[in-house]
């Protein structure tokens, strides 16, 4: 609390622009040997509204690379997508974007 007050005072006096954008989060789907490939494609289309080509490409990336970032953006929305993907039993994790 104290540190925050000190920072505020400092920025106010120097009139620096306040650019506190929240960092983006990645929604990551991992490969598993059980889930059917066309089921994964269907879920991507259904959850994100992706077209058939994009959904298929992402599914193939999951299958071939073991994982794929399927969406990036604000944390709250990323959490919602993770929950929807897990509702369909895709192995999904949430990760803060590096940097």
């Amino acid at each position, binding site marked *: 609390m104290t540190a925050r007050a000190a920072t505020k005072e400092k920025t106010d006096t120097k009139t620096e622009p306040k650019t506190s954008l929240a960092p983006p989060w990645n929604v990551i789907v991992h490969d598993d040997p*059980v889930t059917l490939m066309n089921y994964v494609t269907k879920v991507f289309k259904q959850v994100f509204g992706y077209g058939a080509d994009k959904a298929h490409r992402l599914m193939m990336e999951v299958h071939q690379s073991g994982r794929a970032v399927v969406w990036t953006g604000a944390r709250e929305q990323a959490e919602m997508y993770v929950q929807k993907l897990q509702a369909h039993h895709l192995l999904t994790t949430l990760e803060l974007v590096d940097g």
Partner: protein
Amino acid sequence: MWVAKVDEGWLFGDLTPASVETLTGVPMLIESSDARVRGRLLPETCDGEEDEQHWRQHAVPELERLFLSRAQLVRRDLAQMKKMPESVNGLLLIPFEHVNAWLAALNAARLALYALNDMTAEHMTPEGFVTATPKQQEAALRIDLLAEMQGVLLGDDDFESAGSFEDFVME
């Protein structure tokens, strides 16, 4: 097993007693409290301990409720299963409006069977099947049967309606 698309949904006929037993296991697998199953259906999601705890508190209860309600829906459809005429085999109707729930339920059941039987990716291949234990082989066959049903529910391009469900049911 045969499949027909009827006015009300997908009809799976000539389900052997073993297939029926596999299907009746689906809701129980979704509801399993086994740590291996729960670990797969409700996996660790966040990197940090605090974030993970937040996830467990806020997102997981809703997922658990969804899984239970899905298990109930599948159980209700299974309770409506009929017997094939002059046969011990079963006849199951999956209404169109239940297809999405069934797809997810079948996926959950397959993942649960895989986890409960300590299977590996190798066991899912023809070469690995031979080296699996009898219990794992049985699980692999059940996983395949459920995949076959998922495959039908995923692609309806080649099917035309074969009439009404009632046409297939002979009291």
